[in-house]
């Protein structure tokens, strides 16, 4: 027999989704963690997975979620986007977890999105990304563009930067981020003098850096991800480029990544919301707990902190909702009262777009591979994934995107 056809459209949101199989009767509640523990992205995602474990342990030690201990199911996304989709479905339909935490690359998130939407599950995504997305089934605890990219551009403008070179990995986040950067740069009067992409899994940047050297930009905007950054920084240094004359601002080099680049990276900038060097009330405890954690990597970083937030945010959500039910959680979010006293400061959840408010920071890498904070936004920046508050972003694109998203 055949099922529904395109015409008889009952395929509204979640109509065919099987009733949730989450078991809330016992004294534990299952959560799913979905990170790449193998393959190329394991380089970054292992730490995120570990910090999720730490957060779960902490919450359990404090009594759990609605009095139930967290029982987590760790899944390996294996740096393979279809696997992310498969595991999401498995976690939701076989393990019956109440929510899933994880993902790193935007590609992995885009693979998870249709599945959580189809099955009406919950996914908490902890990494800065390119924005222009929202989903009733995803909570974004990393920065959207107006919380990381735009502050970085503002910072550059304030430094009187006139020419900018864009260097990125060849995938959705850098491509989209750079599209936005170009729009904003036009508005700011910054000239883009070049744009280069190299595949994620390729390290050698010498040819591209030669082009950068020839273009002599005031600043380099770096959206490279992962190990490729090491090659980029080394080629940059070898070509005789220096932070004094041609500084780099990165959005994916953090305390975790910097050590692998050696001294060559020192003196360059990064835009993040969280730095280990931040002086907030809760940061010391976070750093201390992490350093003491058995699977610790020794330093804290923005994506880790965002992952840490995500679990606590969920805790706040279920407590506000008094239930693990997805619709109840979303309803609780809608009240816009969910906050968490995060290491980066007190963040507030936007119940409409499921992002959180964040402070903007620019740090400069010092010899200890820590960041000296050189700029901070004057207040927490409200999330604006579709850049509705920015007139330079073309309304028709926004409309097309929101239309396409349904």
């Amino acid at each position, binding site marked *: 027999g055949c099922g529904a*056809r395109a015409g008889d459209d009952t395929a509204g949101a979640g109509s065919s989704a099987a009733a949730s199989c989450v078991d809330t009767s016992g004294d534990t509640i299952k959560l799913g963690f979905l990170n790449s523990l193998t393959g190329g992205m394991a380089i970054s995602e292992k730490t995120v997975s570990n910090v999720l474990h730490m957060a779960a342990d902490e919450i359990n030690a404090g009594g759990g979620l609605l009095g139930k201990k967290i029982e987590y199911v760790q899944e390996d996304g294996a740096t393979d986007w279809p696997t992310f989709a498969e595991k999401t479905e498995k976690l939701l339909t076989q393990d019956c977890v109440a929510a899933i935490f994880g993902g790193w690359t*935007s590609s992995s998130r885009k693979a998870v999105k249709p599945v959580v939407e189809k099955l009406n599950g919950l996914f908490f995504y902890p990494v800065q990304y390119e924005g222009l997305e929202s989903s009733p089934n995803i909570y974004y605890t990393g920065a959207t563009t107006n919380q990381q990219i735009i502050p970085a551009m503002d910072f550059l403008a304030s430094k009187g930067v006139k020419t900018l070179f864009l260097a990125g990995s060849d995938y959705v986040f850098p491509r989209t981020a750079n*599209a936005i950067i170009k729009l904003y740069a036009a508005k700011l009067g910054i000239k883009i003098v070049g744009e280069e992409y190299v595949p994620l899994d390729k390290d050698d940047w010498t040819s591209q850096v030669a082009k950068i050297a020839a273009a002599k930009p005031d600043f380099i905007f770096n959206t490279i991800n992962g190990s490729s950054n090491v090659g980029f920084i080394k080629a940059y240094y070898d070509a005789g480029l220096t932070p004094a004359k041609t500084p780099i601002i990165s959005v994916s080099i953090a305390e975790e990544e910097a050590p692998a680049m050696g001294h060559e990276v020192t003196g360059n900038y990064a835009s993040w919301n969280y730095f280990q060097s931040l002086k907030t009330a809760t940061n010391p405890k976070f750093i201390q707990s992490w350093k003491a954690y058995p699977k610790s990597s020794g330093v804290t970083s923005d994506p880790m902190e965002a992952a840490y937030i995500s679990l606590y945010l969920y805790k706040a959500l279920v407590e506000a909702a008094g239930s693990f039910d997805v619709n109840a959680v979303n309803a609780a979010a809608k009240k816009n009262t969910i906050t968490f006293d995060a290491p980066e400061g007190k963040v507030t959840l936007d119940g409409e777009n499921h992002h959180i408010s964040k402070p903007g920071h620019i740090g400069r890498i010092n010899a200890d591979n820590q960041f000296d904070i050189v700029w901070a936004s004057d207040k927490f920046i409200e999330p604006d994934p579709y850049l509705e508050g920015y007139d330079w972003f073309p309304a028709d694109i926004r409309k097309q995107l929101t239309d396409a998203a349904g």
Partner: protein
Amino acid sequence: MTKKPWISLGGIGVFAVLLLAVAPLVLTDHWLNNLGKYCCWAIAAVGIGLAWGRGGMLVMGQGVFFALGAYSMAMHLTLETAGDRIPAFMVLYDPLAPLPAFWEPFRGAGFTLAAIVLLPVVVAGALGYALFKRRVKGAYFAILSQALAVALAVLISSTIRETGGDTGLSDFKYFFGFVLNDPANRQMVYLIAAGLLIVCLLAVWQFYRSRFGELLIATRDAEERVRFLGYDPANVKLVAFVVSALMASIGGALFVPIVGIITPAEIGAAASILMIAGVALGGRASLFGPALGAIAVGWGQSSLGSTWPDGWTYVLGLLFIVVILFLPNGLSSLPARFTGRARRTPVEQPTPAIAAAELEGVRS
């Protein structure tokens, strides 16, 4: 080669009953869907068995043909989902540009189906013709085919607006008019995949028992010698290669509605090698070996990869080593080993001057 071909036919029958009747009854939706995915790999594996096991061509780049089917299907489903708008991901990079010209024909269901069948035939035909006529073989062929898969994967990754890049194509709502979210329709897609796997098995069953099957083995073992019997070995290999490409394409095409996403990683070096892993595990030259091996590897990835991700990589690595080292003819050679009914096979050839001489003449 099988002594009693009808036993194999019976085997296919049993397999068909298991896949088409038993599995839908006993498996949950999730596992049925996973089994569907393994069937797609199995279809490609059956083709690899033909080309590699019987034909001696170590096709390390079947991802290329998998991609042709998969992306043909994915483009069609993307357009079906987008309706008359341009696909959402394209808006991100350049909202004003039109739909790339090569997308346009994939709106048509008929064109798409034809492309899934004809594209691999044409591409494999041209490629195989160029390589086999020039007598590119052995390790050269293996590495070249792998390089091709890598090149295609990188190409797709680097053309985000045209192909979706590294993120791939996903979020399909409809499958030729059927709503993909509907469990009944998903089961239908599964049945199509399982059914096509059976069809492919039947096709190679006939190939193996035919004279062509023997000629293929002859070509594998002594390609140059075949020339002196009046055959052009390039043509013999070409047939096997094209058929295997077609199967990979069909596997790829069904992968898309079942898994709901296709990305360059599914066609690149690692994915192409994983397809080989299943074939090696099951038994490259046997009828059922490749299909069962592919299903086993897929299952291992889903289940062991879940419970023991670090371990799974080791298991997979060891699988390659142990199977190739101790069971070059795969698990399907085990029964024969134990029952002792094994045919006399020339295990240890007295090396005549010609046998080991040139690397390019080397097989398996």
